[in-house]
């Protein structure tokens, strides 16, 4: 069972594209949209390319383009990790 976590994603996002918009306490970050967090499509492409290098998961651009929330992003990475393991 793969375990790419929301913390992994946030860490890579911040390294690639800087701090996101502040999130209120108690709000589930996984459910917010990337737009609300202040990350655009290029931030996600950059993040996907770092995740490929770090975790060996290939996320094609068209797949990344369909991901709206951190939760979806994490689930997709874990599904891909399970496929290759």
């Amino acid at each position, binding site marked *: 069972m793969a375990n790419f976590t929301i913390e992994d994603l946030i860490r890579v996002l911040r390294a690639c*594209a*800087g701090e996101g918009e502040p999130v209120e306490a108690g709000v589930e970050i996984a459910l917010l949209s990337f737009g609300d967090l202040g990350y655009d499509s290029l931030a996600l492409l*950059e993040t996907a390319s770092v995740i490929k290098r770090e975790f060996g998961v290939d996320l094609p651009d068209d797949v990344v383009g369909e991901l709206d929330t951190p939760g979806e992003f994490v689930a997709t990475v874990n599904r891909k990790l399970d496929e290759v393991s």
Partner: protein
Amino acid sequence: MTGAVVITGLSAAAPNGLGTDEYWSATRTGTSGIGLITRFDPAGYPVRLAGEVPGFDPAEHLPSRLLPQTDHMTRLALVTAAWALRDSAVTAESLGEFDMGVVTASASGGFEFGQRELERLWGSGPEHVSAYQSFAWFYAVNTGQISIRHGMRGPSGVLVAEQAGGLDALGHARRRIRRGTRLIVSGGVDSCLCPWGLVAQLPSGRLSTAEDPARAYLPFDAAAAGHVPGEGGAILVLEDAESAAARGAPRVYGELAGYAATFDPPPRSGRESALRRAILLALEDAGLGPAEIDAVFADAAGVPELDRSEAAAISSVFGAGGVPVTAPKTMTGRLYSGGAPLDVAAALLSMRDGVLPPTIGTERPAVAGQLDLVLGAARAAKLRSVLVLARGYGGFNSAVVLRTVDRTG
């Protein structure tokens, strides 16, 4: 509508001072920002001096999200633009988003960013190249990032004419305002101080290979032997005069009263440089005669042949020694698209304070008698109209006339 276009805000990022106040106090006192290149090891290059903007920590001024996607020149441009807008007291709420546009000049693009990503491409592979390379290197990126950051969705663009482009951007900004846009953020900020950027400039043969910062860039001097490259520039806020008054703009630095651009004949044609014609057209556009111009901020190439043709153009229009001429860029090096906007900022501040900043370094003018150069120290002067000249590698000549504005109500 009077059609008058005025400058209501400005800011500078220059090798001899970051921010208007630091730049202007250094410039008035003849303080140079030229020194050994520190951004990379220049030991293996024939050009080792440059003007680098001091004390700039981008993280101190910009949100972290803008850092991974911006070249050094864009960071400088964003910070300078924010300061210029603050100076003009324009906020996103002052005017509609389509009433405000951005027109900057660029001479190259984000070369430092681009070099790093090219090194990754060839050194590590394509998957190591930043997604932001798609635009961070691009010559239009400063205009785009300023527009996005400040929500300015009116007519925007970028002008490319090497060192002359900074004046062409102001001319185009004025054109846009006359066509109905209330405000344009304009000017230019460049930086090309990476190995790739520097090497790309070497074939022009115009860069100084001198080792002594005090003797490296000596325009109009008998010992002139090229220019020192520099980084930085200025951003200016241009507005329709009536619109600026209606929103209660706190200050008006002056009017962009005249603008013209010409192009030189082919090299070795034997024909005269078109710089003189640019001066005459800009004066005509401003409705002023040569006797009404109180000072000239020269392009000051620092290349003997170009210095001679500029001195000839100025003296043929104004008469030998007929107008004070200065080149504060001797303290910064040539800033490419940022150089002329910085001169415009300096000229506006000169008009405000009644003082002409000096030309430093130059001691023995090769053009003695032709030009009344402001050498060594600043000179007090009542300035109502000032001419700023800029020439770009490849044959570009541009001229701008600035005029004080009486605010009597």
